[in-house]
């Protein structure tokens, strides 16, 4: 056992953090800098990170979930407002169906956001249930699973005019509402998506949302520690007060524990049997989602009044954490699934 990064993983971690630090979001005002955002999206594409889960030629992905998690962590650390998770998951799913996606495509989720969106129909025509295209910035299409009554296949929804509608409440990743009855184009040649595929996709999605949560935790703690060292009351930095110190120390410890479970969950995706990978992912998501909530609330608190205003960056982290917590099932969902697994169904 050696849980350290390989030299290649360490180099990827370094370069991903560097890129995110250069082109990510440092203030709420940065969110309106469309030129920066376009350069960030282009840099992610140029780095080849969206292709990490593409087919390497033998059906296996080009890179393991560990590399994808390293990138997810780095991007969330700088609340990067360009698509990564959605397109990456769409490509992972397409690989399983033996397809290549010709245009920028993200993944559609069901209304609870705890799994892929679904449609009903046949191999030639289908219509969507109510679904949400997540991480849809720059995407032309969103994938759904078509249930034809004899196995699951992939279909795609053209986002087109929808792209101008409500974009959801995560300010860094667009969430588009796709109404029930929207036409779904069955993808010709889609192989069947097995239940094992879905378990692996869920394990991957949980592991990557954990990595996203951990990156966000580190980012928001850094912002908060910096703030309390500067903000003065009673003639001293508020960070000199033990009450404030202990809140941030706890946050730091929760982040460290979250990192330990999330690294293992990412490794487990490709290294363990799907059911064992899912258990590792559920453990990680339970821990990380709870920790992220506490840490982000602490960050709002230690910023005082400013922390409750739109222009303070903390809510950008908090909103992102809320979406990442929900994707593939939040902490309560995972905890109950683990309880059913280990304690027998209630």
């Amino acid at each position, binding site marked *: *056992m*050696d*849980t*350290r*990064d*390989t030299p290649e*993983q360490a180099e990827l971690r370094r370069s991903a953090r560097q890129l995110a630090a250069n082109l990510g979001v440092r203030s709420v005002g940065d969110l309106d800098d469309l030129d920066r955002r376009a350069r960030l999206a282009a840099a992610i594409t140029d780095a080849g990170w969206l292709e990490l889960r593409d087919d390497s030629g033998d059906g296996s992905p080009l890179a393991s979930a*560990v590399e994808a998690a390293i990138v997810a962590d780095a991007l969330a650390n700088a609340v990067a407002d360009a698509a990564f998770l959605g397109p990456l998951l769409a490509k992972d799913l397409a690989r399983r169906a033996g397809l290549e996606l010709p245009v920028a495509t993200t993944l559609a989720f069901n209304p609870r956001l705890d799994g892929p969106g679904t449609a009903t129909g046949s191999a030639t025509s289908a219509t969507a249930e109510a679904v949400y295209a997540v991480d849809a910035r720059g995407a032309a299409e969103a994938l759904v699973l078509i249930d034809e009554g004899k196995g699951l296949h992939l279909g795609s929804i053209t986002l087109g005019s929808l792209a101008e509608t409500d974009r959801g409440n995560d300010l860094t990743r667009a969430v588009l509402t796709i109404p029930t009855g929207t036409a779904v184009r069955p993808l010709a040649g889609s192989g069947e998506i097995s239940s094992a595929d879905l378990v692996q996709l869920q394990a991957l999605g949980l592991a990557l949302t954990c990595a996203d949560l951990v990156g966000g935790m580190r980012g928001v703690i850094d912002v908060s*520690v910096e703030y*309390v*060292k500067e903000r003065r009351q009673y003639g001293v930095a508020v*960070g*000199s007060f*033990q009450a*404030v*110190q*202990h809140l*941030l*120390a*706890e946050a*730091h*410890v929760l982040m*460290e*524990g979250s*990192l*330990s*479970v999330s*690294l*293992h969950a990412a*490794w*487990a995706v490709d*290294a363990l049997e799907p059911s064992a990978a899912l258990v590792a992912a559920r*453990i990680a998501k*339970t*821990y990380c989602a709870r920790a992220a909530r506490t840490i982000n609330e602490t960050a709002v608190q230690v910023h005082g009044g400013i922390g409750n205003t739109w222009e303070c960056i903390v809510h950008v982290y908090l909103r992102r954490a809320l979406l990442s917590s929900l994707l593939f099932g939040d902490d309560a969902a995972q*905890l*109950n699934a*683990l*309880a059913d697994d*280990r*304690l*027998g*169904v*209630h």
Partner: protein
Amino acid sequence: MDYRDSHEERAFRARFRAWLAENNPGLPASSTDDAYWQRQAEWHTALYRAGFFGLSWPKRYGGHELPTVFDVILDEEVARASAPPRPSLGYLVQGLTRHANDIIKDRFLPGLISGQERWCQGFSEPDAGSDLAALRTTAILDGDEYVIDGHKIWTSYSDVADWCFLLARTDATVAKHKGLTAFAVPMNQAAIEQRPLKMINGITTEFGQVMFDGARVPAANMLGDPGEGWRVAMTIVSHEREPGELGYQARYAKTVKELEKKVAAAPESFRNDVRESVAWAYVQTEMLRLHVCRRLSERLDGVDHGPGGSIDKLLMTWTEQSVGAAAVAVAGSSAITDSENVELKTYLYSRAQSVMGGTSQIQKNIIAGRILGMA
């Protein structure tokens, strides 16, 4: 990044698992039953003789010079077999290895590691708890011996100890952190009196007070240099905070397994909040196991004696207390109606984890000051 066993690790795991199947003494948990401590020495000796103790320590002193990650495997297998955890001595070994001279190391490390000589730790005093450097026990040079006078408290297993790793004041004229020196004090002398303390959960063999009234220790038994005591103590407490040194996660995993068994036997009789409490204790225990995997892997780059132990201590504390909370939740009313209820004992014992080895508040001070730079 790879969590799988290497070839050598797999062979070690198989060998230990087979040995454990024949040699598990089936002791009750150390935290809830005096019977554990009555037979702990046997368990230590058995592990040592079979070659399963002191895995990462130097061969010269009876160790095996294996990478530290082998301790994770040992702890996992102990938990799997519901066997007793390995004796928690790593922090004393780290303290001696880092600070003592070669003569002292040759004299004391082999007996400490083999279990032939038993040790206790004399740091805290009634008026020096979190403020350890305020301790008042004195060691005064008299010929080639020091004479010890003072009162130590929270001393675990002092009644069976051959030696005390004692922290005493040798110079009252300098600043309080600078006048301290560490010694290996022989416990078998009339000038040392033991006073056991009964713990919150009723166990009596763990904690005690030790009174030194003119006890004597050869000057040659000094651990480190005169005035180096504070640094020695900080090395020890930083490692005393590390679950990787202590092996406690095996104890937590064992308790969680017992709670899960109890609930799974009659799922319909437990409310959902009780189930969630048990599942959360499982999540925390797994988190701690994986955190130790990460920490011990990092040690492949070399041992760090820095403030990171405070992070690990808090994670360990939150884990133990989540296990304690799950235990009392599973017990329900029997926690109060059954005078022998073991879950209540587990719960009550768990409250000490946020105090022993430095309170959670002290750990947070260290993290805020030395890691986050807020002091």
